[in-house]
C-alpha cells in the first residue's frame, strides 16, 4: 500500500479514537512493524506543521494522540468549552513534582522531603488522575509506590518522562553550586 493511504488510515485511527493509541496497535492495524509505523507517524507529525492544519500528533511514551495546536486556542474557546480543570495549588504542585522526579516513590519518602504529612495532597493528585499507584515496595508493610500518569504528561505538555525539565540528579548538584555561588557573591560584595 502506498504511504499516503497508510497516513490516511493512521489519521483516521487517531481521529476516531480521540484517546491515545498505542504504537503497537497502530502497527498491527496497518500491518507494518513498529519501527516503520513510528517513522510514518513522525513523518505525519512534520506535515502537520503546515499552517492550514489545526491539529498535531503528540507522542506519549509509546502511544500517539491527536490534539489541537496551541495557536488555535483563542479561536477555539469561542466555541468549545474548555474541560473543567481543577486548580493545582502550590502544595499539590510541590507534591506532584516530587512524584514526577522521584517516581516510583512512597508516601513516606514524599513526607520526608516535604517535612509534612502528605496524605491529602497525594490523594487529591490520585483523584485528579495525575498520579497513580504503580505497585508496592518490597519491604515490610509493603508501602504503595506512586508514579505519574499519561494524563500528567498531557496536562503538562511533556512527551515523556525523559522530557521533564531537568529531571536528573545533576539538578541537585547545580542547585548546590548556585547556592555556593550566591554565598561567594555575597562574600565578595
Amino acid at each position, binding site marked *: 500500500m502506498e504511504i499516503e493511504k497508510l497516513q490516511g488510515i493512521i489519521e483516521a485511527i487517531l481521529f*476516531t479514537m480521540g484517546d491515545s493509541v498505542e504504537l503497537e496497535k497502530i502497527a498491527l492495524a496497518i500491518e507494518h512493524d513498529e519501527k516503520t509505523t513510528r517513522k510514518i507517524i513522525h513523518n505525519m507529525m512534520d506535515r502537520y506543521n503546515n499552517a492550514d492544519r489545526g491539529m498535531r500528533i503528540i507522542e506519549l511514551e509509546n502511544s500517539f494522540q491527536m490534539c489541537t495546536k496551541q495557536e488555535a486556542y483563542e479561536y477555539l474557546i469561542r466555541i468549545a468549552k474548555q474541560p473543567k480543570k481543577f486548580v493545582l495549588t502550590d502544595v499539590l504542585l510541590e507534591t*506532584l513534582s516530587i512524584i*514526577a522526579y522521584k517516581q516510583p516513590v512512597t508516601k513516606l519518602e514524599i513526607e520526608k522531603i*516535604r*517535612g509534612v504529612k502528605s496524605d491529602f495532597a497525594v490523594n487529591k493528585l490520585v483523584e485528579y488522575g495525575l498520579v497513580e499507584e504503580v505497585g508496592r515496595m518490597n519491604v515490610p508493610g*509493603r508501602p504503595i509506590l506512586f508514579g505519574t500518569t499519561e494524563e500528567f504528561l498531557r496536562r503538562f505538555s511533556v512527551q515523556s518522562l525523559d522530557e521533564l525539565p531537568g529531571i536528573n540528579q545533576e539538578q*541537585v548538584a547545580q542547585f548546590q553550586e548556585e*547556592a555556593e555561588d550566591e554565598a561567594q557573591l555575597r562574600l565578595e560584595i
Partner: protein
Amino acid sequence: MGIPVKLQVFEGPLDLLLYLIDKNKIDIYDIPIVEITNQYMEYIRAMQEDDLDVMSEFLLMAATLLDIKCRMLLPKEVNEEGEEEDPRQELVEQLLQYKMYKFMAYELKDREIDGQKVMYKSPTIPKEVLEYAPPVNLDELLADLNLRKLNQIYKEVMRRQDDKLDPVRSKFGTIEKEEVTLTDKLTYVEEYAGIHRRFNFRKLLETQHSKLHIVVTFLAILELMKIGKIQIEQESTFGEIMITSMVE
C-alpha cells in the same frame, strides 16, 4: 525581629526555614543556627495553630534546630575518616532537596500553562466498529488467581490496616494508677498459657486493659521464657508472635 501581624501561611517547617533563610539573606551552607532557631521559635509561638498534627511537625523541626544548636556548642564530632562533621549538614541537604522540588514545581506550572491551550477530542467510534470490541477475557485475566490467593491478599491488606492502628496504644484510654505485681502477672500468664497451650502474643496483650498491665505482662512473658515454661516464635519480621506453653 518583629513578627508581622498577619502571619504568612507556611506549608511546613522546611518552608518556614527557607523563608527565614531567604529573608535574612543567609548562606544556606553556613546557617547562623542560634539566630535562625530564635526566629523560628518566635514564629511558631506566634502561630495560632490548633491542629496538633500540623503543630507537631513544626515542633519536631524546632527540636532538630535545638539539637543542632547544642551540638554546635560541643567539641566538633569527627567521622570515620577523621573529618570534622558539621551538625548542620543533614538539615542543609534536606533544605536543598526541598528547595529543588519547589523550584521544579514552578517549572511544571509553566508547562501547565502551555498544556492548557491544547484540546482533545472525545472518541467518536462508529457503531459498526464498536461492535467488534472484544469482551474482557476473564480466562486470561484470572489465569493464576484462586480463592486461596485472594484470601491471602485480603488478610495481608487487613493486617496492614491493623498495623497502622497500633492495637496496643489505640486502646489506652485513661491511665489509672494501680498496683500490679509481677508475681500476680506470672500466675496469670502461666494459667493463660495452661488453658490456651499455643496462642498469639497480640491476643494476650489485648486482654490487658492498661499500659502498666501490658508492661508487667510483657515482663512476665520474658521471665517465663527464661525459666523455660514457654517458648516464643516469630516466623517473619513483623509477623505474628506465637507463644507455646512448655508445661505438660
